[in-house]
């Protein structure tokens, strides 16, 4: 029989180790971004080369590498991501550190689960620990598919801040309350956290999309006035449209998980509280988030709403996710009184 308190102490130490490593990773990624800013001056001439004109149903984001995206409308003035393959040393360091931090973080979470003898997601401290772990896992996993290391600063920053500040939620290990003794705890909460992780990544992309869209607008104006485009790390990133495509694809994965969360929650509520839906505050907010993202998906298909406006919806949606996790859990009365605080 392992000593529960000792295991938990190791878990906490590992969490702080992970926070420290994530912080280093954040710094490495930040250096990478500043280097990109420098490069954007150097690559300027290269991207001034005649842009490819191709009419096609190609979704901009689907170009086999984000670097080859073309924009017919303003491509000569808006060189977006025509980046020659570069060895991004600092981005690599950042990713390696993020992966190392993730391993510590994973160990901390597993230890907590072992110490408690159950899944490590049944109070605020554990939700935060597992939720940020999944955000990191999804980010690192997505890197195998697309080079999104330009989001590294954002993701490691977000996870560092969330994980470090969630130490205010720390509680010792206590037995589960009866309503939580259910297979649905394992499924519902885990899927909610996984959905949140995808939505977090989509959120990061939407923010960069907005910045990129602004820069592209300004670049067109600058080009019309015959000015040189400003230096910016954004110049080495995919176009706003490509970013939007990526954000959308991550958001719909998150949305599907969220839909599942909503349904699993209702099934659980039917078992635990005797009704599948009762407009409990947490239910209401889960629903609000679901509707906001449904709105986002519609916005992307509505003329006049694509682009910047739909990106704002994704941002509002994620703000609601964070609100639901923090403020609603801590300050709103309701049946979901499991924050452990």
């Amino acid at each position, binding site marked *: 029989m392992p000593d529960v308190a000792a295991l938990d102490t190791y878990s906490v130490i590992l969490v702080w180790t992970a926070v420290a490593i994530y912080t280093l990773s954040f710094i490495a990624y930040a250096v990478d971004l500043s280097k990109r800013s420098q490069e954007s001056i150097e690559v300027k001439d290269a991207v001034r080369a005649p842009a490819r004109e191709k009419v*096609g149903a*190609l*979704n901009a984001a*689907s170009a086999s590498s984000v670097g080859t995206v073309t924009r017919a409308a303003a491509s000569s003035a808006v060189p977006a991501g025509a980046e020659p393959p570069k060895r991004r040393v600092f981005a690599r360091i950042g990713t390696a550190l993020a992966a190392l931090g993730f391993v510590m973080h994973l160990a901390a979470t597993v230890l907590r689960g072992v110490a408690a003898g159950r899944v490590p997601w049944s109070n605020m401290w554990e939700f935060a620990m597992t939720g940020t772990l999944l955000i990191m896992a999804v980010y690192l996993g997505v890197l195998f598919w697309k080079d999104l290391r330009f989001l590294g600063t954002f993701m490691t920053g977000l996870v560092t801040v969330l994980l470090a500040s969630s130490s205010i939620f720390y509680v010792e290990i206590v037995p589960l309350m*009866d309503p939580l003794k*259910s297979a649905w705890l394992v499924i519902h909460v885990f899927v909610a956290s996984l959905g949140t992780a995808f939505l977090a990544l989509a959120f990061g992309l939407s923010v960069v999309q907005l910045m990129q869209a602004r820069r592209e607008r300004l670049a067109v104006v600058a080009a019309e006035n015959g000015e040189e485009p400003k230096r910016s790390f954004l110049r080495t990133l995919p176009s706003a*449209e490509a970013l939007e495509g990526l954000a959308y694809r991550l958001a719909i994965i998150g949305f599907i998980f969220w*839909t599942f969360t909503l349904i699993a929650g209702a099934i659980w509520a039917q*078992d635990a509280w*005797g009704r599948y839906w009762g407009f409990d505050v947490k239910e209401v907010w889960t629903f609000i988030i679901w509707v906001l993202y449904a709105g986002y998906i519609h916005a992307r298909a509505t003329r006049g709403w694509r682009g910047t406006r739909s990106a704002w919806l994704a941002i509002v949606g994620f703000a609601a996710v964070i609100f639901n996790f923090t403020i609603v859990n801590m300050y709103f009365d309701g049946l979901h009184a499991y924050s452990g605080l």
Partner: protein
Amino acid sequence: MSRRSSDPDSNAKGGHVPGENDANPDAAGEQAPEAEASDAAPRSRGARTASGADTTGADASDPQRPSDHFDSAPASGVVSPKLGVVGWLRWAWRQLTSMRTALVLLLLLAVAAVPGSLFPQRSADPNGVTQYQADHPDLFPLLESVQMFDVYHSAWFSAIYILLFISLVGCILPRTKHHLKALRSRPPRTPVRLGRLADHRATTAHVDADEAIAAATKQLKASGYRVERYDTDAVGSRPAVKSVSAERGYLRETGNLVFHAALVGVLIAVGIGGTLKYTGQRVVIEGTTFVNTLLDYSSMNRGQFVSEDALEPYAMTLDSFDVTYQPPGSNAMSQAGDFAANVTITHPGEEPEPGVVKVNEPLQVGHDSIYLLGNGYAPTVTIRDADGEVVYEDSVAFLPSGDAQMTSQGVIKVADGLPEQLGLVGFFYPTVAELTTGAYASQYGDLLNPLLTLDVYAGDLGIDDGTPRNVYALDTDGMDKLTGRDTDRESIELAPGDTADLPNGMGTITFEDETPEGADDSIGMTESVKRFASLQVHHDASAPWVLLFAVLAVLGLLTALFVPRRRMWVKATEGADGVELEYAGLARGEDPTLRAAVDQLADKHLASLGVEEHPPTR
């Protein structure tokens, strides 16, 4: 595709090939300057040009979309409705079923749901509403007038979701009709200039054009495409062209329609279910029985179509109630768990059956589900008059006041047998301790050192005229307080087994010790007081239907979002130095894997023809 381009240019340009130019991206690109000028994404422009440049921008096999869908062509000029009622109605309907309206209504719905989480809601938290009224007497009437305490049943919330669902139905029906037709349509003609498509590949080889296309047709068909041959003979300077046009992914639209229709299904199931469901609550004390009739519930909500005799007349006895407490000294001292209400169910004329109700594990009885909502203590009290005659004997549920230590509050009402009616109000502490202030508090949830304290009120209980009264509250208007603070007598304090005198020589009160014979009392009087379970009986036939529609919605969503809808073409053009083979694909909707699919098609096809390609050209 029966449309004909009426554009004179394409005829003028070297021979009109019947039916071909309406799918000609080349011609379309020149004919549709508005597409160039619009801010639509390149992909949507491509999608439109390749499928012809008619006013809707879509062909028969395309899913039908509201006119403000980003994939449909912007309406030419300002559409002002034709005057007249029908014109206006049609216009209004078009507005209501547009993408923009759906979007705005969705956002409104999200915003409208927020206040319900800020203010206590009658349906979920009636006591919270009363409390709010007491705390904010000025604000309350204003909020009440805009239904802030019944948000989800309010006129404005209902208006939003009803409009949304009308819009939804108005959107689904025409699209379903259109889609059913599209399911039977053939893939569109092969565009003249495949090279204008982004995902295009070409090579020249010495093969037989007809055989090559036949092989491609077979290959595409095998990978799930619907295929159609479009061959044109040589005309003038134009060479003969053999081609196959293929399309797949109709399931995408099917999924979208299933998803939206399933949402309507959920709403209808919930709506109908609400009229047919009932929920009743009842406190049952160990050793007592309740009968499933309207009369026997302390509260009952039923839909308007639930008749008086709809309840199945079974009886349920609470035999015992199990609970464990985390021991003193542990991290979660006094946290209670492993609740189980052990019951016996008796249907009329049948053998009694045992059952257990646990949290998360409701007990099914017929079509009802029985849930465990709460529990507490029910001290048994006997009151005798001055002559020693028993005038009152009952176990009374004391409701927990919310702390883990189970400090509980309750009221005992003695209506008959004494000179005056008595009301006794007090606290029950399962494990009592005296604070430094002299007040009592419970320290632990289990019965280690139980104590019952009571204050006595005498006078009119107000129950004789038949007014229903809350059994858990005492209306002290018209009653005199005889013991406790502000009187000259101490409150009554009783441990199990104790007896005390009532004031003014009215008689005695005994707190009965219910400990069974032979019980282990080494760690306290853990069985000295009866427990009660607060049970909820719930009947809702709609739940499985709601679940069914929800699952359909998820399946539809997955299909709609992940099934790629795409067109593929393989074209063989006879030339002087061999046959030019072209491969091209066109995405309909988000499709990140299109390029790979075109490459795969070409590689496999060329391999099957035995063609070595060096170097591949794009």
